């Protein structure tokens, strides 16, 4: 891919982000514009900001990659990411705003009047935030590698440095404008190229076999294998090989591969003929990192789909950077309107990545072999359109992808740094916020450099699972159940969130390996860990009836009564 346009585009996005963040609101007004100067953030602007912060690398790159590899089953991801806001709208949005809480630990304290539960919630915010930051940094690394062949870790380091510097220097003062700007940037960056791609597809005679199984090559294609892989063939396949297959070296040899498994060494070039089916690839090194991609469609159990649905539906409400944005709404009703607008904006956005995934299956099916299917969105413009137009569109997509990493990463970093400063580091103050910012970014950066290669959408899914099993019970029961007690909340978060976290750790550590029944349970923990969290919270609360915090009734009344009524009651 031609990087002469892409790099300026990425640089432009970075500079624009920093500038909007620093100067978006540095406009002084005189008192005659008082009503302009002190206008609260409207639901639509706030919704764009929330969407901008929410649409991460997983949405921008990951979904297309998943659809490319595994077909339409993966459409549950965008559905889940969107539907999470429906649950948020119905159960949480308005009461959460009325609680006056800024962060999730604040909510825990406001509802349960317990410092211990507050600290526990803070620990989970940091955990979820780090889990979610990891794929952002990896996505950045991937994007930069695809664009410039830079080493894997460089993109992550760039995003980490830019975000840490702007957040720590207080450059995210007008964060609502930055994030709203990022949303429209991301939408444009996917929409405009998608229009051209669809036009090209029409021009090609609108081939409709996108989801035929298996995907086939539309034309003769040379594939370079970057990592050693195993190919699994159902029937014999003829390819031209330059490199090493099954331990034997070939140079531009036509080779007939028999049905069965063949080992391909890294650096090998395979030339597939037009119409050849894309063989199924099995990565030999560290393949078990990828719970959803490593398994083919048939092996992916129905259970996994349900786990995914539950995690995304219920996990959204516990994402630290999303919750924080609701504070900007002036009151509960505005919070609800904002959520409705978010549903619309995110729904519109999520129509696009599947388009890229489907076109990717048609035009770039070899991405499943050669390396990262997550790169499909970045490569398609060049592949389908080519020339200067393709390069420009590719640059636009690359800029949008960087906007995705920057906005989500900066939102998460601020949320995590806020919790670290308030609840973990000894004393408060501006300098400590800077220290917190560095700490918030350093851990996931170190992890991403150490770990590498975790598929973007999977890592995000794991963060959702942990959030769904710890914060969803806390929020839903905290808002709707008056008998919740501090010990119950703490136990529920520990058991639900802790078990999900352990399952995540086990999955990332490669235990218990492919195929085992236990593997599916651990890779998609939400289906058992969410009910476990709820159950523990309810049972322990019922067992400690004496610990219901005094004033629960008035706290719940404040959560649920509209503000107008409240002021009449207190007047």
């Amino acid at each position, binding site marked *: 891919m031609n990087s002469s346009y892409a790099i300026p585009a990425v640089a432009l996005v970075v500079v624009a982000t920093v500038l909007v963040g620093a100067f978006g*609101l*540095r*406009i*002084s*007004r*005189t*008192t005659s514009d*008082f009503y302009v*100067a*002190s*206008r*609260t*953030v409207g639901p639509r602007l706030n919704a764009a900001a929330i969407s901008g912060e929410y649409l991460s690398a997983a949405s921008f790159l990951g979904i297309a990659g998943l659809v490319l590899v595994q077909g339409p089953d993966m459409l549950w991801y965008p559905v889940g990411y969107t539907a999470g806001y429906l649950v948020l709208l119905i159960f949480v949005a308005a009461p959460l705003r009325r609680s*006056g*809480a*800024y*962060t999730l630990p604040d909510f825990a304290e*406001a509802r349960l*009047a317990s410092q211990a539960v507050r600290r526990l919630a803070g620990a989970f915010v940091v*955990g979820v935030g780090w*889990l979610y930051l990891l794929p952002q940094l990896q996505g950045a690394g991937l994007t930069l590698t695809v664009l410039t062949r830079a080493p894997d870790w460089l993109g992550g380091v760039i995003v980490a440095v830019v975000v840490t510097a702007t957040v720590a220097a*207080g450059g995210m*003062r*007008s*964060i*609502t404008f930055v994030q709203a700007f990022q949303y429209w940037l991301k939408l444009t960056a996917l929409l405009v190229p998608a229009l051209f791609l669809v036009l090209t597809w029409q021009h090609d005679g609108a081939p409709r076999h996108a989801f035929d199984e298996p995907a086939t090559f539309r034309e003769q294609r040379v594939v370079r294998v970057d990592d050693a892989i195993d190919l699994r063939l159902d029937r014999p396949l003829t390819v031209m090989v330059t490199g090493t297959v099954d331990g034997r070296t070939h140079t531009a040899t036509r080779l007939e591969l028999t049905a069965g498994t063949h080992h391909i060494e890294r650096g090998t070039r395979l030339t597939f003929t037009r119409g050849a089916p894309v063989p199924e690839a099995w990565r030999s090194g*560290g393949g*078990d*990192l990828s719970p959803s991609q490593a398994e083919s469609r048939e092996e992916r159990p129905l259970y996994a789909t349900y786990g995914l649905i539950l995690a995304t539906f219920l996990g959204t409400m516990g994402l630290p950077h999303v919750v924080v944005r609701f*504070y*900007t*709404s*002036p*009151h509960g009703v505005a919070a609800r309107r904002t959520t409705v607008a978010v549903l619309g904006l995110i729904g519109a956005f999520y129509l696009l990545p599947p388009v890229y995934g489907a076109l990717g299956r048609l035009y770039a099916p070899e991405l499943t072999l050669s390396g990262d299917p997550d790169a499909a969105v970045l490569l398609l413009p060049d592949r389908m359109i080519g020339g200067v137009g393709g390069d420009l569109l590719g640059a636009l997509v690359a800029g949008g992808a960087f906007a995705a990493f920057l906005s989500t990463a900066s939102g998460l970093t*601020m949320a995590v*740094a*806020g919790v670290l*400063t308030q609840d973990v580091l000894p004393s408060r103050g*501006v300098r400590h*916020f800077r220290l917190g910012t560095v700490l918030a970014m350093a851990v996931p950066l170190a992890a991403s450099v*150490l*770990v590498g290669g*975790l598929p973007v959408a999977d890592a995000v899914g794991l963060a959702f699972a942990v959030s769904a099993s710890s914060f969803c019970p806390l929020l839903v029961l905290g808002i709707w159940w008056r008998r919740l007690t501090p010990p119950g909340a703490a136990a529920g978060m520990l058991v639900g969130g*802790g078990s999900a976290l*352990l399952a*995540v*750790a*086990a*999955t*990332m*550590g*490669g*235990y218990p390996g492919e195929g085992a029944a236990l593997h599916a349970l651990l890779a998609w923990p939400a289906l058992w860990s969410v009910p476990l969290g709820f159950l523990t919270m309810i049972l322990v609360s019922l067992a400690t009836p004496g610990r219901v915090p005094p004033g629960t009734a008035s706290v719940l009344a404040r959560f649920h009564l509209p*503000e*107008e009524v*409240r*002021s*009449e009651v*207190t*007047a």
Partner: protein
Amino acid sequence: MSGFLAGLCVGVLPVLALGVWLGRRTARAKSLAGLGTPVEHATFETLHTASLAAPPLRAGLTEETARKSARKLRSLLGTDALCLTDRTGVLVWDGDGAHHRDEIMDRLAGALETGRGEAFRLTCDSLDCSVRWAVVAPLTVDDRVHGALVACAPRESAVLVRAAGEVARWVSVQLELADLDHSRTRLIEAEIKALRAQISPHFIFNSLAVIASFVRTDPERARELLLEFADFTRYSFRRHGDFTTLAEELHAIDHYLALVRARFGDRLSVTLQIAPEVLPVTLPFLCLQPLVENAVKHGLEGKAVSSGRCHIQITAQDAGAEALVVIEDDGAGMDPGLLRRILAREVSPSGGIGLSNVDDRLRQVYGDDYGLVIETATGAGMKITVRLPKYQPGVHSAGRPAGE
């Protein structure tokens, strides 16, 4: 390999957290053993027990606080039973012989009347009752008897009488402190009420005079100003809720400034720079308006009527979990030493209650970390910074007034 590392990273975190927690727990339960001679050790023990009994009593003498402290007090005295009463009945009985409750109350009347301690033998039918003697020590606050501490023992003992007297005196001191706490809270409440009712009378005279001057020349303007005046006074006289939102406070400031500008014309210019993210922040009612009033006063003070111009800058920024409000003027400034004494209440400021009261209220609501930060020098203007946490337990705005 890298997968293993990833698992390790995630798996190690909870272990680390657990380690930190355990470390803090064990560090807290520091043993006093091996510290000094046995006598010193005993002293430490006694002081420690006394300090444990103190906190509940700081909330006054009620059934709940008595229950919480009675066991500690009993172990302090080392008796079989201990009872705390108020003037009308037994609040708590800790230890054996609870069937003596009524008898004690009957025989306590004299002691509660005179405020003098006494000891008497208890009549008891059951042979295995270990409680035979009761030592009564009254609890007095400001020479008024609030209740009594009764220590019961199997036999009469001068040591017990002495000890009970001392413990009762110690408890009395705690109750006096509770009384002080209570009056301090009431004082602060009264002060807040006083401040909120107290928009400066000068301001009312001046505003009315300005409005009067426009009545003939520009009736429309006079009408607008009267409405501003009405809005401002309605806000500052409202009765419900101790807290408001930054948006509402800024609106009140806008009304205030409209009136001030009518008086000073273009001698006063104000610029605003407000991040919309912080407008929903909750803050104590009328805690920024006095600061703006102060800036106006200082900005125009000591300047000739013709040449004096003053610029005021009001900034509200988003800073993570806090909002940062800065009010800056380019006026006469103030000697930092004098300012320090004003804030410490050593001198009363020339024109009103402004700064020190706002400072007190902020500290009271948010803690001592959140007082006013004032940067000033003579002739160099003044810059006041207020940090407002976005969330603080117990701080809720009274909500939108109906109809807005």
